[in-house]
């Protein structure tokens, strides 16, 4: 790919096509990611939602080129700025990683190397991807810490990770991710391990950073509330596949997949009264080693029928796609019914 296409606005920042990741194990092949496709535009925030084991984190690791398990098989295509990442040389991938593509992890308590000061860890990354001198890199690190809202950055820069709170550490991790102005930031459950109040502050920060730094963000979470608050588009993953994909308002207004209904029901309403009662989805996600035949969600689905015995293809409209065989009419019928039921239950 040439540089011209890389900056062409018509080319999406990230185009993932039919991504498959499987692991060979003693008990057979485990398909962790099974044909994931999506596009991500410039300055866009995509939320990927799903339970643990749905393949969302593995997808992120594949985009980072960080799956180095010798038993892993990665197929499909991941095009970043028009450039294919699958099969890219280790050196090239390393240059992108931490530079153009940065990542934030779930647990800030363990994400930083305990024996170095936070400043040294940020400087390490800056020196790796830029030709700043150590002194200049250090000044830049102070700026970054300030940008992510750390009070007294000149002081914090010489602290060790264990001397900072979880929220502060997550800010340091974000500062580190931003240090080289990444075009794409991958965030793996960045708020899950944090207090609710800190969560909101970190989400605010991510939003602000999109504005200031112009990065696109993929945010992986199991929390629909987080997605509602921040994402432009949502992809719902189940058992290694995207089962529903739409922009955020559409997803929350007219969800199509029974699994999405379950996810939306299991969060308390953000604002206003929600007509349906809070419920959780019956059962547990399937083991990836032995996926059920047909639609993977069928064993837990109240609305399954004989049509679900075959793996459902992605259908729907260009802006709202779903892997479910329910007809629009049926969906409307089902969505209306529990609402009627709810009227009888005092809240």
């Amino acid at each position, binding site marked *: 790919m040439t540089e011209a296409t890389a900056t062409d606005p018509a080319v999406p920042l990230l185009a993932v096509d039919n991504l498959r990741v499987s692991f060979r194990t003693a*008990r057979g092949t485990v398909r962790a990611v099974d044909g994931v496709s999506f596009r991500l535009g410039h300055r866009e925030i995509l939320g990927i939602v799903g339970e643990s084991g749905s393949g969302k984190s*593995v997808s992120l690791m594949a985009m980072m080129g960080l799956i180095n398990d010798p038993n892993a098989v990665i197929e499909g295509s991941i095009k970043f700025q028009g450039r294919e990442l699958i099969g890219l040389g280790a050196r090239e991938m390393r240059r992108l990683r931490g530079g153009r593509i940065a990542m934030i992890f779930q647990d800030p308590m363990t994400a930083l190397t305990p024996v170095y000061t936070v400043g040294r860890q940020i400087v390490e990354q800056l020196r790796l991807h830029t030709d700043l001198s150590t002194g200049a890199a250090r000044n830049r690190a102070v700026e970054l810490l300030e940008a992510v809202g750390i009070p007294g950055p000149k002081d914090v820069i010489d602290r060790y990770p264990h001397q900072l709170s979880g929220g502060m550490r997550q800010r340091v991790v974000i500062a580190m991710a931003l240090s080289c102005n990444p075009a794409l930031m991958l965030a793996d459950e960045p708020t899950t391990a944090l207090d609710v109040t800190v969560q909101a502050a970190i989400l605010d920060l991510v939003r602000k950073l999109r504005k200031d730094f112009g990065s696109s963000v993929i945010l992986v979470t199991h929390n629909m509330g987080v997605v509602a608050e921040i994402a432009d588009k949502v992809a719902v993953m189940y058992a290694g596949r995207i089962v529903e994909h739409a922009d955020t308002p559409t997803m929350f207004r007219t969800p199509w997949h029974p699994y999405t209904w379950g996810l939306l029901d299991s969060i308390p309403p953000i604002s206003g009264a929600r007509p349906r009662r809070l419920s959780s989805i019956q059962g*547990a996600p399937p083991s990836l080693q032995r996926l059920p*035949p047909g639609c993977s969600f069928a064993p837990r689905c109240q609305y399954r029928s*004989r*049509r679900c*015995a*075959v793996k459902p*293809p992605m259908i729907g409209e260009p802006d709202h796609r779903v892997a479910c065989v329910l*007809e629009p009419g049926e969906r409307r019928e089902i969505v209306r019914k529990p609402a009627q039921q709810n009227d009888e239950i005092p809240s």
Partner: protein
Amino acid sequence: MASEIGAAISDQDYARVLDAWTAPELPASAAQGYWHAALAKVRRNRAAMVAVVALFLFLTSCVMAPLYAHLVAHINPFKSNLDGTVLIGGKQVPVMQSASNGLGVTPVGPTWRFGPYMLGADGQGRDVAARLLYGGRVSLLVGAASTVICLSFAVLLGIAAGFYGGIINRVISVMLDILWAFPIYLLAISLSIILINSGIRIGPLVVHSDDLILPIAIIGIIYVPYVARPIRAQVMTLRRSDFVMASICLGASDLRILRREILPNVASTLIVFTPIMMALNIITEASLSFLGIGVQPPSASWGTIIRDGEHLLYTRPLVSIAPGLAIVITVVALNILGDALRDALDPRAKLTLH
């Protein structure tokens, strides 16, 4: 359309699919018992199995040492044989040969044939191969017996300290701390020089200075802190764990908690420690015997044979080399077994699958 695809499925096929959907998820490995799984894992470890076979072979051949001495070597390996002869290449050759320079004598070298003096003679004209087998009996016996002593003390002290805490814990911990800080070989030397030179006499109980029980007891005691401290820590953790708390709340007696919750957990630690400690004890026995304060004559161990062969090192190296190799092979096998057991039993080593 999707609905059409679904309609194409036969009733029979759909019934099978429905079965698959509604079948309860079987837990992947919890169905197998913990010990069962561990044993299976050790069995699958090829190196560990080779080690077990090697240890078994060593043990049986050492047990059969008298048979070898009578039937093959035709000699008493504990009697010096300075004037004897041995048939080599059809000629009777003296066991102790005069050196070419006329100074001293050199024992006969290995014949490499399955018979008398297969591995040559030592400085007393005794059959090295036969002594090797007898020495193996003592080395393995001392190693095993001192391991039993060490682990027994360690379990008693570790559980007492960890389970009851308080003053008992304090006293035991201090004792263990002192013993632990004491350099191993110096402790062994101090004990040995006193005990092995004069034996002990406590009332009617007399232990002679050449009794094997002395090195066994000394080696058994010096490593107690190395095992007792981890066991104490483990028991303390277990004692504070949720499941023990739950048992206490349900009114279980101390004895019941010990038997049901603590001991099974400690047992896995002990199993891992057994081969490792035995390996360590065999080396320690050899080292003390090499210094002359371990196994005392007339008993022989691999360590004493190495000591006996020290002055023959440059003329008849095999006298020292052979028992050393026996020690190395035994200890390597025990350590491999210990590694395999740890991999199989240590819950930390268990893999978590994403």
